[in-house]
């Protein structure tokens, strides 16, 4: 829900999970932003599409289950998870390889998508 001082935030995540604590910290920021009653959307780009790939076993490398946070995003009023279509294709992935239903956006529309948001944050 967007409060009276609400801005539209777009979080762009471009890195695969588990290689660093990048995703964890990006999600901390995203959830804090949602707690401030801002409208929050997420765009997974490049290797960021791996964040919600099925079949991850993070416990094997003592890593946190980052994908679980995405499954819970709706509880935090973050309804929109978008994925760039070409990023999926280039990695041999399909929306059915992902853990949750997503909106796929073609590369040619990413610029316009960003322009529709007040704040674009890479993480």
């Amino acid at each position, binding site marked *: 829900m967007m409060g009276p001082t609400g801005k539209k935030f777009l979080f762009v995540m471009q890195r695969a999970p588990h290689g660093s604590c990048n995703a964890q*910290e990006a999600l901390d920021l995203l959830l804090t*932003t949602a707690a401030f009653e801002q409208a929050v959307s997420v765009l997974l780009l490049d290797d960021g599409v791996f964040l919600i790939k099925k079949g991850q076993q993070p416990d094997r490398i003592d890593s946190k289950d980052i994908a679980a946070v995405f499954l819970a995003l709706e509880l935090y009023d973050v309804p929109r998870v978008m994925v760039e279509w070409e990023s999926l294709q280039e990695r041999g992935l399909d929306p059915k390889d992902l853990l949750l239903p997503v909106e796929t956006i073609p590369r040619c529309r990413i610029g316009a998508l960003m322009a529709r948001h007040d704040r674009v944050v890479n993480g």
Partner: protein
Amino acid sequence: MKFAIQINSGPYQSEGSESGYQFVRAALRKGHDVYRVFFYYDGIDNAFRYAIPPDDEKSMVQRWSQLARRHDIDLVVCVSAAQRRGLLSRKEAERVGKVDSDLADGFRISGLGQLVEAAIEADRLLVFGG
């Protein structure tokens, strides 16, 4: 115009910190306001008091400290990112049973809410590095 600045990389990782610093200086020179500079991810490396490069190299830590002193800029380091990486203020150090303060002059440690608030209050949020 009122700017909020987010720095995501350390002095020795990418040009993000340098670019952010130069942007802040240029913005101030042109008469703009810098509402806050927030250090997140490995950007917290800019706030280590004891980062001491050789004399013939620039020190990003000193440059940020100096900027804060000269222009009264609010430099905020994310508390959870800082604790993950071993950067503690004296108060935080004492709380977890350590002794020293590693935080350089002109910086303060606070929560992510400070970044979100700056992003809402400023006219523009600029993200550097990472």
